[in-house]
């Protein structure tokens, strides 16, 4: 087992290296750091323009140089100093990454757990109630949520919050706290509890957005897998052995049908970091999703490569994680 995992890990690392190299070659040839200064260059004095070009050259961002040469220099910095380079505006990529990944973590944790757990339960439950009114209602609403793009959901929530807030001063809604949707916390009264509650308040809207979409998708997946298993022979056998329907469903059908969901979960968690672009943009969080889009838009070669590397690492971690999940859920794997 250990050698097997090790061999897999080495394979993943080689893959990761190739992916990052390709990402560099792609970004290094397609992005043009000078374009990040287009507006400035257009009105700039000759000295200003020269200064920009020389700064880019010093930062290994001069695209008139051969991309392979630039790649070599970048790679040796990464290997020797763990220095991932700087953006065209001289911002350290490593610092950005190390700040932003925690921001993303804070943003997606609750939402994805709520979404995955809630969706799985909902899916399992509706499967046992196939074609009943509750099942149809759940199916319909999750299809509606799935077909609305995330940014529309986010904007609808933001509008609703503004509307609610305009009513919290008086009347029915006055028990609600003022819903905020910018960032984690702008200002809050001193004290741990206040700080914590304030953070929670800022999390409400993005969390609902993330959880809703996740919930809808998981409930669909789980329901379908569950349906396959509910009618499987072994469930019937379990019931024949004397288990109640309920016991058979929970101990046998649910467990089996969790395996594919767990694999799916592992991989989505990895991608959630870079996938929450709209949520971050709309609710003013500065995490990895925003970074992914911004680095490309701002012609930030090093930033874009680092994001690709980060996503690659997450996929690898997710793959390992999913194998662990499967091992836990599937006795056949453990025995092997």
């Amino acid at each position, binding site marked *: 087992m250990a050698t097997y995992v090790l061999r897999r890990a080495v394979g993943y690392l080689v893959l990761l290296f190739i992916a990052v190299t390709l990402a560099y070659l792609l970004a290094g040839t397609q992005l043009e750091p000078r374009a990040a200064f287009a507006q400035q260059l257009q009105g700039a004095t000759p000295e*200003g323009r020269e200064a920009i070009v020389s700064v880019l050259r010093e930062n290994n961002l001069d695209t008139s140089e051969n991309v392979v040469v630039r790649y070599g220099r970048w790679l040796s910095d990464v290997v020797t100093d763990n220095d991932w380079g*700087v953006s065209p505006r001289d911002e350290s990529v490593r610092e950005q990454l190390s700040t932003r990944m925690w*921001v993303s973590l804070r943003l997606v944790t609750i939402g994805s757990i709520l979404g995955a757990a809630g969706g799985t339960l909902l899916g399992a439950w509706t499967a046992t109630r196939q074609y009943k009114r509750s099942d149809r209602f759940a199916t319909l609403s999750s299809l509606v949520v799935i077909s609305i793009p995330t940014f529309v959901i986010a904007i609808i929530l933001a509008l609703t919050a503004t509307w609610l807030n305009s009513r919290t001063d008086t009347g029915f809604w006055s028990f609600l706290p003022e819903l905020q949707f910018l960032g984690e916390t702008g200002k809050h009264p001193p004290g741990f509890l206040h700080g914590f509650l304030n953070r929670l308040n800022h999390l409400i809207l993005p969390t609902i957005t993330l959880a809703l979409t996740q919930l809808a998708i998981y409930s669909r997946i789980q329901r379908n897998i569950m349906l396959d298993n509910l009618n499987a022979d072994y469930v019937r056998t379990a019931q024949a052995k004397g288990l109640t329907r309920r016991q058979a469903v929970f101990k046998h059908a649910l467990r089996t049908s969790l395996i594919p969901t767990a694999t799916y979960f592992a991989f989505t968690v990895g991608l959630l970091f870079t996938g929450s672009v709209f949520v971050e943009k709309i609710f003013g969080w500065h995490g990895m999703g925003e970074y992914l889009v911004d680095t490309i838009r701002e012609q930030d070669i090093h930033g874009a490569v680092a994001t690709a590397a980060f996503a690659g690492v997450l996929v690898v971690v997710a793959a390992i994680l999913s194998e662990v999940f499967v091992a836990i859920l599937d006795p056949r794997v453990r025995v092997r």
Partner: protein
Amino acid sequence: MRRTVTALIAASALVVAACGGDDDVAGGVASGGTAAPTGSATDGTATGAIEAGSEDGKLSAGPQDIEPAERAELQHGGELRIPISSLADNWNGNHPLGNEVPYSWVRSPMEFRPFIFTPEGEPVPDEDFVLDATVDEGPPMVVTYTLNPEAKWNNGDPIDVDDFQAMWKALNGENKQFKVNSHAGYDQIESVEAGANNFEVVVTFDKPYPDWQGLWLGMTHADSMATPRVFNTGWDEINPDWFTGPFVFDSLDTAQQVIELVPNPNWWGDEPLLDKLIYRVVSADARAQAFANGELDIVEVGPDPNAYQTVSGAEGADIRTAGGPDWRHFTMNHKAGVMKDKTVRQAFMMSIDRETIGESDLAGIPWPVEPLNNHVFVKSQEGYQDNSNGFGYDPQGARQLLEDDGWVRGDDGVYEKDGQRLTVELTQISGVPVSENENKLAQAQLQETGFDAQVVNVSQDDFSDALFAGEFQVMAFSWIGDPLPLDDFDQVYGTGSDSNFAFSNIPEVDERLGPLATELDPQKRIEMANEIDTILWEEGHTLPLYQRPQIWGVSEELANIGAFGLTRFDTAAQWENIGRRS
């Protein structure tokens, strides 16, 4: 974008409005109207020369709109939450990496500045720093600054001649190791010396420099510019010791991307009214909604009808507007295709209905769009006059002009001459809505005249390369944020100059640019500039479309902040006086 502000001197006199406080606009001249005291977006009171709000329901295109108020009317306390687009990794405003508008918003309340510009564009010494500045026209031209001896950097050092010398040496271009945005002005200084004492600074120029009031804006402690190393790479964090001003750096949160400034305990001027300035990085798309939800106090709307709707409909919001220094235009490449021909360029200009284009660009925003008929001055500026001389919209005249020049209209409606079809390529920047819109409309209008107009795409990334290389015939873009029409005028219109994207060679213009750059009499300068402008219209260099609006949403009780117009916030905002009405 230069940080100098001087040409505003030329922008003086005409403009009246914003100074009047809440009451009506004095006199019939000029106008501006500024916002009504109620903060209503529809300000019908404006009248007069700038014509702005004269049409019912239109916003005011006046010179400035900041809801001015006396300190006594305002309460102490409160915060001001300002969205910015990013944090700097180099906070040095004279370095190209630090030279961005959002960074100046953060720096401005902590900066040294010699002059404040009134809404009329008149420079008045900022007495917190400079008690007096006198100019001796010479030759040689000498400016003597009398500094406020109380003025100190945050580390306690006095602000004196040493700082002026350090800034001059860093920016004058002699030491190429300093990476600077622009030498303009500093490279014309011969010496910076102490006068009677260290608080009297005598600056001698080697030739007359009319825009001298723009120098020394945003000066920082001499230590911050002492060596190229510090100047270029020592600014990754805001070092409070190098700054001064009514506010001081308090905290930076990199995860939230929030910077907070608090009142400066060592400040010797009027005590700031606000308790805190909070700058938060918010993506442009999210700002209007965040403002509507009361999470931001001020937001720039820009040419976005949805944002305008959201902001103007928000509770407690006041829309403040002014004509800005930016303008849209078509640049015509004198070295490309049929545009080489002066008659064709003239016919091109006469074929474009600029009002329709402007209204379409700003659809959904009640802005009084008018064609801009001057290359030098925008409408709300002193010196503006219509120099278009018949080269405005006149498709019939355009056809006449072409036919007189031997062009014959073919069966398909396109003119031809000596076997050459009148084909013009319009280069649009794909993904930029105004650019796409302008080119689409221009294409239809040109075809109406008898051009065979083709729209070609350039990506946003390749746009500046195409521009510099002259790989286009006609391209629309903005001249951005330079309120100083004359300081870098030769850069855009002189033969072989750096930003002459029309690649023009007009001797009549060239011979007038030199004298313009050294003329010290503002009125004379305006006349000279307009004379050049008339030639530019005749030659067809750039077709100005319209002056871009400045539209800000501001929480209504905030006073002394909003749309600063041509003077810009960093030369006009008095941060200690910004506050909320009681």
